[in-house]
């Protein structure tokens, strides 16, 4: 051991200069190594990427990135929200040389992605759905999400015109803020057309439970709901059940129109292709990637499915006019006075929460007209 540690002064100096020089080079041009060869990008999905839902929406975005020049895309699906995702990230980084990672599921963020980001501070980690906070989260991480509730509001308007029983059904996975915001916006949209409408909510407890989702859809329809929608990972089963029972439905995540040719009214869809290709262009151009990306219909992160044949002209006209005000940025969904479904005032009269207001990202109430509770 003693022998091996005895270096000559010359060799020590030589090594130090070399390392220092490399370091300075790297610091000056952060994307040097990436530009030299392809930019390697890793996408991680929590479920199968062809699930007609959440993961398919992301995979469609990844496919758009794949078509860009100078990139290599890695994908891994069905990665649980556990230490498994850390292993997946490690292998993408160490074995494949990924320098930009997109762990797309909500539960990947804390602690898994944050832990990896601290360990690999020279790489970029971008997460879908989380809320990046300066000072609290590492600078090489970021989060992006879309105001898909704008599209849900439009779905609510269309649903209200199509419903005869004035009862809508919403099948939701878990009572987290993003889900509650969709339920509330859907209901507010419907009640803007007819204030007597109610939305019954069923929480299934997890993101993908096909049997329970089918059972929930049947129960809602038995109780008179004639338009159902959902916020679960794969709306396929719910849309198919609604079609079988002969009621209307609106879609979520991706278009399910082909699954319900008669009953599909419209739907709220992600447009991740835009978000991902924008990010990759920034990375390739050496532009600093923003830590917090948000946007809705106006920014092109969200889109709506084309109207189904069953949608009336009045509904189309009304929804299109509201959509136009979303597109010019003048429409505010959460405008007081708004009461929750227990009768408490949650947004006072005269107060407005615009879409970018992060107060909305910690929503913990259900709006008046929703039949359901959080626990």
């Amino acid at each position: 051991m003693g022998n091996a540690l005895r270096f000559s002064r010359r060799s020590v100096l030589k090594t130090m200069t070399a390392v220092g020089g490399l370091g300075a080079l790297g610091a000056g041009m952060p994307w040097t190594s990436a530009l030299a060869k392809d930019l390697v990008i890793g996408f991680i999905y929590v479920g199968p990427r062809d699930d007609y839902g959440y993961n398919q929406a992301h995979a469609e975005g990844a496919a758009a990135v794949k078509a860009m020049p100078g990139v290599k895309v890695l994908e891994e699906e069905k990665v649980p929200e556990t230490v498994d995702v850390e292993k997946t990230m490690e292998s993408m980084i160490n074995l494949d040389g990924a320098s930009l990672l997109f762990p797309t599921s909500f539960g990947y963020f804390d602690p898994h992605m944050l832990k990896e980001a601290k360990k690999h501070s020279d790489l970029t980690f971008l997460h879908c759905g989380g809320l990046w906070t300066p000072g609290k989260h590492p600078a090489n991480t970021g989060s992006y999400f879309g105001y898909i509730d704008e599209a849900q509001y439009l779905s609510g308007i269309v649903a209200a015109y199509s419903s005869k029983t004035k009862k809508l059904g919403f099948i939701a996975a878990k009572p987290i803020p993003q889900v509650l915001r969709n339920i509330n916006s859907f209901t507010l949209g419907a009640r803007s057309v007819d204030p007597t409408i109610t939305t019954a909510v069923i929480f299934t407890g997890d993101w993908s439970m096909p049997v329970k989702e089918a059972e929930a859809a049947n129960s809602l329809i038995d109780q008179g709901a004639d338009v159902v929608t959902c916020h679960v990972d794969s709306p396929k089963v719910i849309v198919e059940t609604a079609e079988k029972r002969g009621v209307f439905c609106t879609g979520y995540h991706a278009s399910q129109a082909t699954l319900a040719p008669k009953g599909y009214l419209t739907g709220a869809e992600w447009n991740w292709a835009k978000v991902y290709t924008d990010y990759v262009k920034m990375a390739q151009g050496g532009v600093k990637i923003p830590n917090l990306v948000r946007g809705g219909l106006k920014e092109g992160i969200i889109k709506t499915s084309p109207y189904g044949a069953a949608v009336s002209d009045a509904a189309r006209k009304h929804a299109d006019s509201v959509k136009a005000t979303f597109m010019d940025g003048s429409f505010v969904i959460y405008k007081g006075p708004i009461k929750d479904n227990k009768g408490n005032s949650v947004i006072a009269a005269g107060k407005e929460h615009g879409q970018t207001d992060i107060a909305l990202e910690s929503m913990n109430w259900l709006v008046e007209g929703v039949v359901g509770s959080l626990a």
Partner: protein
Amino acid sequence: MDDGSLGWWGVPLAVLAGAIRISTPFLFVSLGECLTEKSGRINLGLEGTLVMGAMTAYAVSYGSGDPWLGVLAAGLAGTAFGALHASICGLERVNDIAVGIALMLLGTGLAFFLGKPFIQPQAPQLPAISFGWWSGSAQVRSALQVNALFLVGLALAPLLLWGLRNTRWGMVLRIVGESAEAARAMGYKINQVRLLATACGGFLAGVGGSFLSLHYPGSWNERLSSGQGITAVALVIFARWDPMLCVWASLLFGGASALGPALQSVGVTQGYYLFNAAPYVLTLAIMIATSSSRHRLAGAPAELSVTR
């Protein structure tokens, strides 16, 4: 309440409908496992068989356009898995529970791998028979849309019970399950009997899986089974290895599973996590109520490795 809505009557109706809709996979897997366990072996791999059956049925129904061909293919896939389990367990000093777990993982893994191209397409579904023609209510009519497989399962249970009690085949199966030594002394080939019993059990489990993908919920995806196969294995113990009791246990479990969503839809929204756990709580409660520390579980085959 508006017209067309059932209000509180929706809850018993949903439980009844749930009992019919959800119970079929439980019924088939538990009947199959009942048969296997009567021969003195536990096949825990039925979860994998169920998933494999669901995938095979969906793929064959999609490819051929005939859902019944899918059911048959699912049964054959199940038979192959059952035969594999039995032939491995037929070797010296092999633990049937360990082999079962291995086959459970193999079955689900293989089904996910082979099932990839079938997540997107829609396969032709099994038809349902309407028993609700007498009712003016759309809800009742929908609840009484009964699948033929459910009826087959219902008919199979008394047939199995009768067969186990009154036929020579049934007797041989029970001797092998109760005392392998006695069976050997009488000149029966134990491994062969168990092979047949496990293969038949696999067939039924595969058919149970086809119900999941071809009728309710009626599509193939990788999270289709939320442990129905393994729950059904537990139901056999719950049902004391009696095919008729398997029917009741499956119906009870199906009905209890429907309770959570049904209560939420009528506005009982507090504590839905608890209601969703209802089937499991119920199973535990009945198991505790009927267990005894003084004697062996009534009806348990004596050769079963867990009770021996």
